[in-house]
């Protein structure tokens, strides 16, 4: 039988606020253990949580960017369970009146656009961090993260392949980055993803028994875990066994999902309204104001790049692949009104440098102004494209401006016939075969000769002039 996978994703995003969700402790990554703790986030008797206004505003941005309906009346609930990473023995979360619901995200795949519904986006607090030293019968707890604001974004089970799940995560992350509400760094845990997956006979609409996958710390791992799990469930069903509803952990080393040692009983969280937090009433005008304040989102930016500058879908997507790169492009545009030239440089040589250095645009020693200076030198015919790549390399190494590097390395393009003719004579003398080929009618042979001129002149020759001079010289 053919089976169709049904996948739903639950994403947790740490909000980039200055303080925790319900107390004034600093919300920072990487400080010494248990330095950002207070009676509220430790759940000491008599303490009273108060909601961080900025956390709610950030949640609102995400909800609206994902087209969710924001509830006019929302409240927090206690989710009760015992685990040492939770100092209060409950987590402040949202149960039956989530902050927002019924959104969607359109993802682009080879086969076209897929509409993924978003079930809910709600606000909750994060738990602390547990460390399990190899030796000893104890675990250690750091509560710096306990009580920091977390957004839970739950999709409907609308995805049907690991690739769709991957595309959903990539697009969601991009939106979150554009909104500038989180670092979205999976390695630091500021973005986390759990996946629910089940199989059903192809062509049917019911839902099979699902397993919940956890412990994936990259989008790639999510895709691999789903691929593995789909195969595993397929094998179970094909052999006439049934899938057990369980939580399974992705094991990066073994490249497989393994059942989590089952906690003693099914979870029974006994949600009830958090009595320490009064409810929140959100007016239509507040929602409208937040909507107006949303930045341009990736999809809109891509469309605008295509419509205004005539970029291809692929180029528009590359330029808007991170907000930093798109902002860099637009800053360049303010200085230099040739969008296609700038795009060519960013997608070509600059992206090459980012990839080979493992840096994003912000990590390079490059500003819009310094890039434009370089492009300007090329466009004015002062240096060749080839030399420009070398100059870019040098700019990133030394941080010096392009003009100075050209001067120091004597890279100015040579366009005058007098200086070029000796190089051309040298090339003609040394490449008899290509010369003969050209004279025999092989026009392409001239390209090889131009290449030799470029090489001999260390990239300084103006290739256009060199080509013209070569043809003239060879035809005479």
């Amino acid at each position: 039988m053919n089976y169709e996978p049904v996948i739903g994703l639950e994403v947790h995003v740490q909000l980039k606020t200055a303080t925790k969700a319900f107390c004034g402790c600093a919300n920072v990554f990487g400080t010494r253990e248990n330095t950002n703790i207070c009676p509220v986030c430790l759940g000491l008797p008599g303490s009273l949580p108060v909601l961080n206004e900025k956390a709610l505003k950030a949640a609102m941005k995400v909800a609206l960017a994902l087209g969710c309906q924001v509830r006019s009346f929302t409240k927090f609930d206690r989710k009760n369970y015992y685990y040492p990473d939770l100092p209060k023995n409950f987590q402040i979360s949202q149960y039956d009146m989530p902050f927002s619901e019924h959104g969607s995200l359109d993802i682009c795949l080879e086969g076209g656009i897929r509409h993924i519904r978003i079930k809910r986006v709600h606000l909750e607090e994060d738990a602390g961090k547990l460390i399990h030293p190899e030796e000893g019968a104890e675990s250690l707890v750091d509560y710096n993260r306990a009580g920091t604001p977390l957004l839970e974004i739950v999709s409907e089970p609308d995805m049907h392949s690991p690739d769709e799940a991957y595309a959903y995560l990539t697009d969601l992350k991009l939106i979150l980055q554009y909104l500038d509400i989180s670092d979205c760094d999976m390695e630091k845990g500021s973005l986390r993803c759990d996946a629910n997956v089940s199989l059903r006979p192809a062509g049917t609409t019911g839902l099979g028994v699902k397993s919940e996958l956890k412990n994936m710390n990259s989008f790639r791992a999510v895709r691999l875990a789903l691929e593995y799990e789909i195969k595993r469930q397929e094998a179970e069903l094909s052999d006439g066994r049934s899938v057990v509803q369980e939580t399974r952990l992705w094991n990066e080393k073994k490249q497989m999902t393994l059942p989590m040692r089952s906690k003693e009983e099914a979870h029974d969280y006994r949600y009830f309204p958090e009595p320490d937090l009064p409810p929140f009433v959100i007016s239509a005008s507040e929602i409208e104001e937040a909507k107006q304040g949303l930045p341009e989102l990736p999809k809109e930016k891509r469309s605008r790049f295509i419509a205004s500058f005539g970029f291809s879908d692929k180029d528009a997507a590359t330029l808007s692949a991170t907000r930093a790169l798109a902002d860099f492009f637009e800053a360049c545009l303010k200085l230099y009104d040739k969008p296609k030239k700038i795009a060519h440089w960013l997608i070509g040589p600059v992206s090459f440098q980012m990839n080979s250095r493992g840096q994003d645009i912000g990590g390079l020693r490059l500003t819009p102004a310094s890039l434009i200076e370089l492009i300007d030198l090329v466009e004015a015919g002062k240096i060749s494209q080839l030399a420009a790549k070398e100059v870019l390399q040098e700019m990133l190494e030394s941080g010096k401006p392009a003009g100075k590097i050209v001067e120091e390395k004597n890279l100015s393009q040579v366009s005058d016939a007098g200086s070029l003719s000796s190089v051309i004579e040298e090339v003609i003398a040394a490449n008899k075969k290509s010369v003969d080929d050209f004279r025999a009618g092989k026009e392409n042979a001239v390209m090889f000769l131009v290449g030799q001129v470029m090489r001999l002149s260390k990239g300084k020759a103006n290739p256009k002039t060199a080509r013209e001079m070569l043809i003239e010289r060879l035809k005479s």
Partner: protein
Amino acid sequence: MSISRDDVTYIAHLARLGLSEEEISHFQGQLESILEYVDKLKTLDVSRVEPMTHVLDLKNVYRKDSVVPSLDPQSVLKIAPAAQGQFYKVPKVIE
């Protein structure tokens, strides 16, 4: 509403309470009478009453996103059952 012994044991476990056989019987009776009492609410017509989410007539209580000093870890860890360095120490939990 009747409460079985298993219900009591289950709830006690969720709350991490260890109850003796005697206590289970004792609380079984108590819980039953409490629930019976609360059941009286079912005789009221609440079809026109909005569900209550909070007892106080308060709403939209926010805090500005500005940092206030945290506690001194050493003084807090003093009241912890166990600590190691600046960490809280708990019996090993492994997933």
